[in-house]
């Protein structure tokens, strides 16, 4: 008689051996395990909130794969992609370029759990996470490859992380740090618990809903399929946090507070513009802020409360940034559109503007006034005055423009001189993160450092675009060719009727 899963599950999951030919400290170095001063037997309490066997895993994943492939094939035959709104398509370019390689980086992170996590339970579960992330990478690549014939921008699913495109550098900088370089414990807190359990909801649930409404069933289906895996393996963060709260709660608080802010800034860039500006107006489900409040902030507050953690000291500032950060990132990315590999939608026609004002009551006085000047320049034919003339200065922590976390009212100095060099930050929060571990962040050479170091030649916009790998066929421009600005042209005076 076959045993039931529960009869053998723990024996299988806990399979381990006592190393005798090598020092255990060498086999599981603390720099990789992240166990720090936590006693070895403390990890016996690590219990995952879900149970899965390899047999179950393969069966379920096979069904998911079949579903995604069937939908994709059917829609390709129906020519659905060709009917999509171009602004929505831009969101999929942005997503594929910015996340495909992050999925691949996550394979490495999960592999580290398999090899170095401080308990065999976690090491065994890491195998499923590793397989999940491999699937996600392959899904993105397959989706993008199928659409290459429609648009060369889908090539950036694979290419982006091999370029110096500034947005990609910001994303890569974060995930290099919390996925590829972090020990298992920190990776579980920053990536599993913060990014995967919290923020991926905004990209994979909210954006999936918008994509479905926009008629992009294939992409929506892909996002939803990925999220079912994320929701499972993200839970590796909970037992890790539980052990840490028992033995080193200060570290838990610090790691989560840093990871939450860095994630928030990143998703203001990745998801905020796509939801509030690229998704066609009539197909928007909720605003970015509404989704954040429902899907991310409620989750995070519950985690903090359940595990006895405090809200980050910057919580009120973070909530305030929900009204501004992504609007600034949107204005900035649109302004720097030649430096993008997708075509941004300005998203400020009169109807869209009414929606923005309804969702964000201070939008008009804060962002509308800046767009008014841009609109005037567009309608007067001064497109050159709506294009970059220099580079924005980037934050030494987030690699995003100074000022882009808040409104123009908060654009102010957050500067630090460290070892003889000036470091600029987008906020006192990012500066605080940096000062916790300056040696961790100080060595990074950002886009501006490389520009000043002579790596970008010629030292002008054309040189910067070439350095970023942007070629004419993918270089960003206004997705509607500025047609939205005509909303603001004064109606022509009616011709005077002459009596005959």
């Amino acid at each position, binding site marked *: 008689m076959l045993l039931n899963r529960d009869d053998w599950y723990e024996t299988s999951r806990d399979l381990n051996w006592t190393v005798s030919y090598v020092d255990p400290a060498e086999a599981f170095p603390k720099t990789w395990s992240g166990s720090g001063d936590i006693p070895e037997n403390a990890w016996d309490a690590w219990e995952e909130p879900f149970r899965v066997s390899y047999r179950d895993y393969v069966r379920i994943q096979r069904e998911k794969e079949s579903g995604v492939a069937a939908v994709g094939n059917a829609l390709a035959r129906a020519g659905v992609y060709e009917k999509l709104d171009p602004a929505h398509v831009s969101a999929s370019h942005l997503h594929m370029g910015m996340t495909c390689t992050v999925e691949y980086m996550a394979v490495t992170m999960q592999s580290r759990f398999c090899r170095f996590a401080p308990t065999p339970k976690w090491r065994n579960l890491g195998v499923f996470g590793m397989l999940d992330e491999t699937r996600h990478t392959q899904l993105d690549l397959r989706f993008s490859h199928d659409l290459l014939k429609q648009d060369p921008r889908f090539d950036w699913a694979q290419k982006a992380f091999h370029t110096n495109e500034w947005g990609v550098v910001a994303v890569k900088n974060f995930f290099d740090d919390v996925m590829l370089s972090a020990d298992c414990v920190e990776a579980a807190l920053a990536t599993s618990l913060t990014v995967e359990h919290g923020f991926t909801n905004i990209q994979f649930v909210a954006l999936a809903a918008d994509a479905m409404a926009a008629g992009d069933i294939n992409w929506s289906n892909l996002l939803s399929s990925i999220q079912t895996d994320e929701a499972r393996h993200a839970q590796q963060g909970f037992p890790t946090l539980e052990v840490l709260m028992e033995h080193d709660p200060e570290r838990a608080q610090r790691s989560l507070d840093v990871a939450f802010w860095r994630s928030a800034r990143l998703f203001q860039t990745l998801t905020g513009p796509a939801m509030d500006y690229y998704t066609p107006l009539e197909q928007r489900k909720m605003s970015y802020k509404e989704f954040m409040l429902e899907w991310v902030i409620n989750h995070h507050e519950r985690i903090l409360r359940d595990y006895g953690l405090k809200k980050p000291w910057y919580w009120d500032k973070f909530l305030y940034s929900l009204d501004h950060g992504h609007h600034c990132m949107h204005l900035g990315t649109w302004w720097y559109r030649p430096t993008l590999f997708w075509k941004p939608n300005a998203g400020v026609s009169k109807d869209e503007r009414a929606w923005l004002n309804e969702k964000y009551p201070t939008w008009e006085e804060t962002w509308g006034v800046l767009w008014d000047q841009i609109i005037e320049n567009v309608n007067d034919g001064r497109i050159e005055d*709506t294009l970059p003339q220099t580079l924005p200065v980037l934050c030494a922590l987030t690699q995003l423009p100074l000022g882009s976390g808040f409104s*123009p009212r908060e654009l102010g100095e957050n500067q630090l001189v460290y070892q003889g060099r000036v470091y600029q930050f987008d906020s006192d929060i990012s500066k605080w993160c940096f000062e916790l571990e300056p040696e961790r962040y100080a060595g990074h050479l950002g886009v*501006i450092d490389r520009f000043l170091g002579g790596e970008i030649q010629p030292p002008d916009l054309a040189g910067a675009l070439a350095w970023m790998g942007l070629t004419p066929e993918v270089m960003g421009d206004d997705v509607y060719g500025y047609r939205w600005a005509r909303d603001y042209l004064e109606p022509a005076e009616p011709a005077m009727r002459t009596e005959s």
Partner: protein
Amino acid sequence: MFPITGAFQGDAWASLIAVDTEDTIETVGEKIAAVSVGKRLVSRAGGPGYEVLLNGEVLDPQTTFGNLGVLPMQWFEARFRD
């Protein structure tokens, strides 16, 4: 060329501004304004120019930039002169 971080009050982000050590502060203000005013901020035609602030203090417009002795990428703010 000397790189500074320039932010014009009311604008959304700070920009990389290349100044010359021989520039006066008046010129530095104009260089910071050039990437913001008339681009995202409404210009004030025939206005009295711009003030430049360092560490919150308004600088003398006739001071030569090189005499300030600042590090590369130092934060400077500019604003319309009232």
